[in-house]
Each structure stands twice: as structure tokens, then as C-alpha cells.
């Protein structure tokens, strides 16, 4: 039985007819056609689907859409400014060589953003903690942690 729910995505109010069995990831990609958030596994084991809900990094593939009702959701599409300027974290990822095939990157950037919004000057351990749930096969992670450190203002 579909139900109308509203929530905020990237500062815009969204209303959809939601099937309760849908995950937030499905809604983002298939209903709202925002394909920036990726499905890497569907089981919460890779982090490619990470979005920020009420300030916290969450695997959207495991998040029931009905729980999204009334909440504030930030996806990768919401980071760039309206003038097309990259968010500082996105810019750091580009400049530090942290992007190879790019599939894990939206999830990585959202995990980093959740961290830096909460703790602008994180410790090394906090940086690792923020992305320990984001798998990457291309980069070996070194330049990704470099990028997060750079975005936090240290190098």
C-alpha cells in the first residue's frame, strides 16, 4: 500500500508515493533519478550508497524509505554550489588524486562530509573511522585520506 511521504533532499522538499518496502537508495536512484549515490552491494557492506541523514552518515541501501519521512537528507548531488563550484571536499578529492574509477567516491565524500561537518579538525583516527565502512579497490585509500586531511585544512 503506497503512502505519500515528504522529506527534504538537498534542501528541497520532496513528496513521493512510497512503497513501504523500498529502501532510500531505491527511491533516490529509481524514483528521484538521482544516480550519484551508488549501489555497490546492497547489504551495507561497502558504503558506496552512503548519504547523510540528519547529520549522520548512513548506508541508504539498508534504510527503509518510510523512516526517511520528515528527515533531512544530503546526497552527493547536494554538495556543489548552485554556481557549479565544487564543495571543498570534492575539490580536495580531485586535487589530491583520490579519484580513480570513481565508483566509491560519492560514498567516500559523503562519509568525509559527515565527519568534517561534525568535527572540522579531525584526528587521523577519526578520519579512518569515518571511511572504514567505505570500500575502495582502486586507490589503496592513501590519497583518499590525504584528501580528507587536506579538506580539513591540514596536510
Amino acid at each position, binding site marked *: 500500500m503506497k503512502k505519500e511521504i515528504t522529506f527534504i533532499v538537498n534542501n528541497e522538499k520532496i513528496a513521493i508515493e512510497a512503497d513501504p518496502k523500498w529502501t532510500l537508495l531505491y527511491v533516490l536512484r529509481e524514483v528521484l533519478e538521482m544516480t550519484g549515490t551508488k549501489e555497490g552491494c546492497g547489504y551495507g557492506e561497502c558504503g558506496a550508497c552512503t548519504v547523510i541523514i540528519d547529520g549522520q552518515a548512513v548506508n541508504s541501501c539498508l534504510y527503509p524509505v518510510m523512516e526517511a519521512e520528515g528527515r533531512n537528507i544530503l546526497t552527493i548531488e547536494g554538495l556543489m554550489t548552485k554556481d557549479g563550484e565544487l564543495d571543498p571536499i570534492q575539490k580536495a578529492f580531485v586535487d589530491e*588524486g583520490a*579519484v580513480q574509477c570513481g565508483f566509491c567516491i560519492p560514498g567516500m565524500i559523503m562519509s568525509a562530509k559527515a565527519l568534517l561537518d561534525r568535527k572540522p579538525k579531525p584526528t587521523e583516527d577519526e578520519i*579512518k573511522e569515518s571511511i572504514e565502512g567505505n570500500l*575502495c579497490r582502486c586507490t589503496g585509500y592513501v*590519497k583518499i585520506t590525504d584528501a580528507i586531511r587536506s579538506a580539513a585544512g591540514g596536510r
Partner: protein
Amino acid sequence: MDGLKFVGKRIPKKDAPLKATGEAIYIQDLKLPGMLHGKILYSKYPHARILKLDTSRAAALPGVKAVLTGADVPNNFKFGFMKDNPPLKSGKVLSTRDEIAAVAAISQEVAEEAIDLIDVEYEELPGIFDPLEAMQEGASLIHEELKSNVLKLPWKFVHGDVEASRKDSAFIAEDSFTTQWVTHCCLGTSGCVASFDVGNNLTMYSNTQIPSLAQNDFLEALKAFGLKNRRVRIVQTTIGGGFGSKLDTYAYEYIAILLALKTRRPVKLVFSREEEFLATSPRQPTITKISQGCDKDGKLTFREIEMVLDNGAYTSWGATTPSVMMVPISSLYKVPNVKYTAKCVYTNNTYSQAFRGYGNPQATFAIESCLDQLAEKAGVDPVEIRRINANEPGEVTPQNFRITSCGMKECIDEVVKRLDWKNKCGRGDGRGVGMASLIHVGGAARVYKSDGCGTIIKVDDNGKVDVITGSSEIGQGSDTIIAQIVAEVLGVSIDDINVINNDTDVCPWDVGVHASRTTFVAGNSALGAAQKIKAQIMDIAAKTLSEPVDALDMKDGVIFSRNDKEKNIPLGKVLRKAHYTLGGRMLVAENFYDPPNENFDQTFRGNLSVAYAYGAHGVEVEVDRETGQVKILNYVAAHDVGKAINPMLLEGQIYGGGLQGIGYALGERMIWDKGYLKNGNFLDYKMPTVRDVPPVQAVIVESDEQAGPFGAKGIGEPGLVPTAPAIANAVYDAVGVRIKDLPITPEKVLRALKEKAGQKT
């Protein structure tokens, strides 16, 4: 310094912003009007007869537009280089990844539901899961129409007289090593969208690494499906990881084509993560017997290797890995006598194809572990034995490789220095160091009859440059390297260069992204095209500026005369002058670069590559003697790359390859148990996380390869070739046990320690 503006600089990848904003379109993201969703039904058993296959309930489900089984594959079509692999199997299934039926439906959900409605009755048959068992006389045949489970492949290389040199050796080390199945774990799963036009010409949206060869494969398939003389167009969406997993065509692609043909609608078939684990082809496992000998001073006298490869149920590139294994076997260090044989054996297991290194990691694991054993027997320091036998520029190896640039000694020296080797080895107190070197092809590899790559360059009226390359961007940065080279040659800004690489209707031929060849071949191809375009530009500018051609230079998009700086003109302006005039011209140049390497002859001799990449890895480990866990304290990866066109991207290859290698050495393995995959998910397949990254140094050694673009060689694969033996050697130095079976798990280390202490487990 060297006067270069773009080459040698840490320039961000051109496609990075698109990926960092989530705007890049991967195959998962592609939607076409009228598109259907395909799904495959896999075999329940590793070996069985299909007694009944009833698709009627699936076909009747609303929203299902086509259901196919093996009976729907025309003309007994089979793919794979041994032509033993039907896209949909019928009669008998030979592995749990056998595709036995497929559906196309209006949504992913309906497709999945339809798969559940297909009724299959099997008669389970006993399976063979051990290649040694499958090789035996009298073992059941996996493919009943063949005479043997051992594939008819010519893997044998002999140089000199191994038997004689055995007798002359002062020391010999002999042992057996085994390596496991590991899988690519691309974050973006495999998939395609197949679409026919009204003339039955096929467009495949694909994440293949071999667009030109795939085009060929699909043309063959169309012929077999009764469609001769058609066109095939491969359009690559952004590729979410390759590492060799997309170097062959797969059953699912042919299935998508058949579904698209049947429904006359585009069909999208994308793997779930479970399918990615089950149905993509992993790294070739190996069973290796090796012996190496040396004289009393530690100079190598011979190397003899016998290998058995589990070929699985069907054949893909895994069966050809011995041809690349020969590279280190014949040419890693100076070895005067070599003998190598490899047998590929059918079993009811999964089958392998290309994975970064293509056999080199497996062979190097055996060679470099055994070399340490030999060093110990001979009483020679493990670093010294490598220096004594190191390859050198100018050498011709037993396979007739002509070594040009060679930074092997420098790489070894870097490892020794940065690990503080002299103070760290031989402590035996739970901490130890180990090293291993590598050789790999660095100037492409003439695996096929052509090793070429084409480039077309055109410049528009505004001075913007389009570089159309046959090479594919799989995340490694080939687009950026090409742009850097063209920008350097032309003297335009790198931002004015647009690289187009993803459409066979437009792009020239390239053999594929393999053998670490893109910087070398695509780079040289682009360099040649850029030089041609530059000549055209200068020709026009000379006339416009009334200056001799050789007085002209171009910098920052402005052509000027060295004799008279007042005489200058922006590129766009000079091109518009040449275009918008009677009898005007537009600038296009093309260059097909086929490197001057050689195919192997029948004895596997030939200069396979124009140049060879070298490297050495060293590692300091701490072994917890109570738990068997191996912790990496320090990792040094030194690579001879000729010239680093982009040091930042190069480091990315070294770190990325290195961590894959560490996973290969310490934790990754696919658990196939009697033909069933037990750990086909990210929880139980232990791919490294950020917390598993050790302190690592990527060291770039530049030996300036003359034949390479600006001196560069390849780096794509070397990053994970010597990791496993370096770690195994370090563990031996730390606690005196040698693990010869990958991965080096805590259980294996602990068991070995207990056995050494005379304890029971």
C-alpha cells in the same frame, strides 16, 4: 629543470570532477527508453544433468517479455578462445556459475520474480574439484566431447640444459607453492545494455576494457545468430573498476544480446554483488613445483618450474596466463638455464581470466620465495643474491627479451635503504624484513598480431583540441596522460584538450587496456598524432606570419616566432584564417602506433615488449607468535617507470596495486567448497579496508626509456606482483616459518610455528 610544462607534473585527473559530483554515468545509471531488465538463472549444482527445464510459469508472468534457455542459442554458438562456452547451457551443467536460463522483463523486480518461477529438475552428478584428480588417467571427463581434461595448450619453455646445470650447481632449493582464487572486487559491478536498431545493428553499452576486440566477438556472435554483415558499436559508460575483469567477453553479454534480439527492445543486464562474486572470472590459482640452483657465489645456474592450473569448467584467459608467467620465469634475474611446463586442467570449478599481473604474481611468489630459500642454503644474503643476479640494460634474456632501460638495482637499493634493512634483518624476534623484485612488460605486449592504438586529433576554430583515442579510461588515468602528452607537444593548455575514448563508431582501433600498455602505446600514439597536427598548425602559421616554419614555437596556445616576438598569433585565430577562406582547410591528424615488439615464435621466444618494467618491494613485519597474525610495520614499493608522466597518478597505481597485493598475500581468498562459493560477499571476502593500510612508501625510479613517450614505461600491473613473496620472506625472517600457500593467514602461521616447536594443534 627539464622545461616541461605538463609532463612530469601532478595534474589532477580530467574526469575527477565529474566523478566527485556523482555526475559520471556508469552502466548501473544508464537508462534508455523502452529498456527491459535482464536476469540470469544459474545452476543449482556444480555438476548435473538438466532433466527438465520449464519456463512456462515465468513466461506467463505479467511484465515478462522474453525467456531464453540453452535451446534458444542459435547454431550451437560458443564463445571463449577455446570455443567451449555456450552463453546458455543445456543438457549438462558443469559449475554453479553455469547460466541455464534468462529473462527480460519490464522491471528488475519482475525479472527477479520470473527467475524464481523457472522450474528445473536436475540429476546431480559427482563433480571433480581438484585439478590433480582431474588429470588422472580414468578421471571422468568434464567435457564429454573432448578426449582429456587437460587442455591442448602449448605451455612449455626450455632454454639451455637444466639437467646438466643441476649437476653443476653448488646449491639447489626445491619446493612447492600454491596460490588461491582471488577476485577483482570492482566496486562497480559488471553489466551492459544491448540494443538493436531497425537494421539489426547492435549497440552495446558496456564497461569492457577491450572495445575493439569485443566488437569483433559480438560480430562473430551476430554471424552465428544469423546476422551477417552487421555493425556493432561499443559505447563505454564510465567504468567502475577493471583490473582485468573486463578483458574477455562474458556469457551475460551474449545473453543480453539474445534477449534484445528477441524482444526488439534494449535490454539492461547488470550484476548484483552476489553475481559479481559468483559469475565473474577470478585470478588463476596455481600449483607450482620449483627448483632453482646457484654456484658457490650465488650466481643462478638454473630455474625449473612445473605448474598445474585449475582451468574450471570453461576457458577464458586464465588458461593463457602461463604465457605471461614465462616473463619472470625466463627473465627475472639472469638465469642461464630454464625449463617451464604448465598444464591447464578442466574441473567443475569456476574459471579464471585476466587479473592485474596476469599470472606474474603467482609465478613471482614461487620464484622469489624459493630464491630466499636458495640464498639461505648458499649462505648468501637475500639482498646480495638479488644484486648478483640482477638484470641489466643491454641484456638479452632466454626468451629473447631485449632489456633496454632497467632500474632493478636502483629499486633494490631504495628498498634496502628505506627499510633500514641492515639493522632490521636477522633479528628473529618476531620482527623481520623481506623483499622481492619484479619484471613485467613495460612497453606494451604483442599478445595479438596487433599491439597498436590509433589516435585522431582535430582542432576546432577556437583552438580547442579533441583527442580521439582507442584507449579506454578504466580509472587509471589514461585520458589525463594522453592530454598531458598532447598539451606538452602542442603547447596548448591542458584544459583546452578534450579526450574522447568511448565509442567504437568514432574511436580508432586499440587492442585493449591490458599489459600495462596505455601510457606507452596510447601515449606514443597520441604523441605522434600531436606532432603531425603541430606540423599542420605550423605550416599554416608560417604562411600567416611570413616566417620560416622552424622559427616558430607554440606556447600557451599562442604561436610565435623565436626571431621576432612581435610576430605572434593565437591558435584559434590562425585556424579560423585557414578555415574561413576560399579553399580553406580544417585540421585533422591521425596516428596508428603499433610498437616495435614481437610475437612469440613457436618456442615462445621473441621480444614481447619494447621495454620492461622493474621494481622491488620490501616489507617489515611483526608476527604475533601467539596468534599468528602478521602486521606490516613498513612497506616500500620501488618502481622503475622510465619516466613519471604524472607522479600523482603513478603513486595512485602503486598504492592501489600494492594494497591489492597485500590482500592477495594476507587475507583474500574465494572459498570454493566442492564447487560452491561460500564467501561471495564483502563481509566474508576479506578485501582490505582503510584500516588495513600499512605505512607505505611509493618510490618512483626513473630510468628514462628511450622508446617510451617522454621516457615512460608501464605501471598498471607491477604494483602487486612482488607483494606476496616479499611478505612471505619477511615472515620467515621474523619467526623462521615459510608459508608456501597463499594467503598467509594467522592459522597457517600459528600452525607452522607450533610444528616448528614440536607442538600439536
